[in-house]
């Protein structure tokens, strides 16, 4: 049994810990420089069109159609009103009643919404509105703001077409999705819109881009 002649008196230098630390720190630095571990938002989300179905987490949504609707005037002398209607068949996949809600006016802050129409984060072309848009669920001619769990309901998002402005030929919707998870500063679980953080602000992640051909004039 030979003993090393030197190095026994002085304790061995602990090199492993600082070395691992250095490697980790460098790794972290490089990762941070490259933009962190966040998933890069997909610039080309999957494309959907008329009749297709999308799983949004909280909702399963079929994009039925976009149509121009002319409402006959109720009184003679009034002008006919024209609308662009987006028609969906929405199934609430959650365990509690959800709201139809409204499409967000701006992308900022839209991530905080948990309603169905709240997930229609961008509708283009953007149509000038006086009072609209309106969104509602409808069955047997009765309107509602509720989407009951496990039930498939027709939802209509209706935009005013002001003056003689023609209805667009196509409408493109950026649609977000939801996840059942704890909130940002609230540990309780709730349906939260899937969002990405960009420069300290949250923006909804576009789950799918839906392009709908606008069907010609009907009347309601």
């Amino acid at each position, binding site marked *: 049994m030979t*003993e090393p002649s030197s190095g026994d008196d002085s304790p061995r230098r602990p090199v492993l810990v600082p070395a691992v630390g250095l490697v980790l720190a460098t790794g972290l630095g490089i990762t941070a420089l490259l933009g962190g571990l966040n998933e890069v938002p997909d610039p080309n989300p999957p494309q959907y069109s008329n009749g297709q179905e999308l799983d949004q987490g909280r909702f399963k949504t079929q994009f039925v159609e976009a149509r121009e609707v002319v409402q006959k005037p109720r009184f003679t002398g009034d002008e006919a009103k024209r609308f662009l209607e987006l028609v969906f068949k929405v199934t609430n996949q959650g*365990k*509690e*009643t959800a709201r139809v809600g409204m499409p967000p006016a701006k992308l900022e802050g839209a991530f905080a919404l948990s309603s169905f129409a709240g997930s229609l984060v961008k509708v283009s072309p953007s149509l000038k509105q006086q009072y609209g848009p309106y969104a509602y669920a409808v*069955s*047997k*001619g*009765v*309107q*509602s*703001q*509720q989407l*009951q*769990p*496990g*039930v498939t309901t027709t939802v209509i998002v209706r935009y005013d077409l002001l003056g003689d402005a023609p209805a667009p030929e196509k409408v493109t919707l950026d649609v977000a999705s939801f996840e059942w998870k*704890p909130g940002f500063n*609230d*540990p*309780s*679980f709730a349906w939260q819109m899937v969002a990405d953080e960009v420069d300290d602000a949250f923006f909804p992640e576009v789950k799918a881009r839906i392009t709908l051909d606008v069907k010609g004039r009907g009347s309601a």
Partner: protein
Amino acid sequence: MTATQERSAPTRRSRRAARGRAGSRTLSAIAGLALVAAAVAVQTLGLTPNDRGAPISTTGSLGEDVDTGRFTVRVDKVAAARTVETLSAEPVATEQLFVVVTASATSAKEPLKLGQPRLITPDGVSYEATDKIPATNTLANPWVQPGFWVSGFFVFEVPASAVQGSKVAFGLPKSALVEPFEPEVEVDLGLDEAKAAQLTSAPQDVYPLKKS
């Protein structure tokens, strides 16, 4: 040689000490693991964040006065219908099923209003009372006050499959400032298989809401 022996003696001692330390370290590790396991086990008993501050339910059954201390609710009757006629005589139809609950309420000390209740299935699926019937037509409209009862309706729109074994939870109206441990009344509608089948297979064509 002597020098080596002199040096090796303390080394052996320190090795023995090290062995002792290793033993206690193993013990500590086992104890630590046990504590971690215990902590995890206790954690599963804990409330989920969603349960914390959740309403405190007082439970009861059909026809029973269920008293939370702040208010009392009694479910008098349960019916099913395809169409409900509102107080303004407007028919409201559904593709699902309307469950019409007739209930009465009184308060212990202060006037208060009830919120729209929820119908909850045995699987925990919860249906808010429908907004297709205006809230002014429901028992959420009148003041619930001490010393006398007020009666009225609540209407739920549910699939027929949600009826069996369902309960209704009555609470205070929603507010921006959420009160922790709010009082809540949970009434088992007593709909066993036979009664549920009876309700869902033969709903009334038109259920008129009438002021009592």
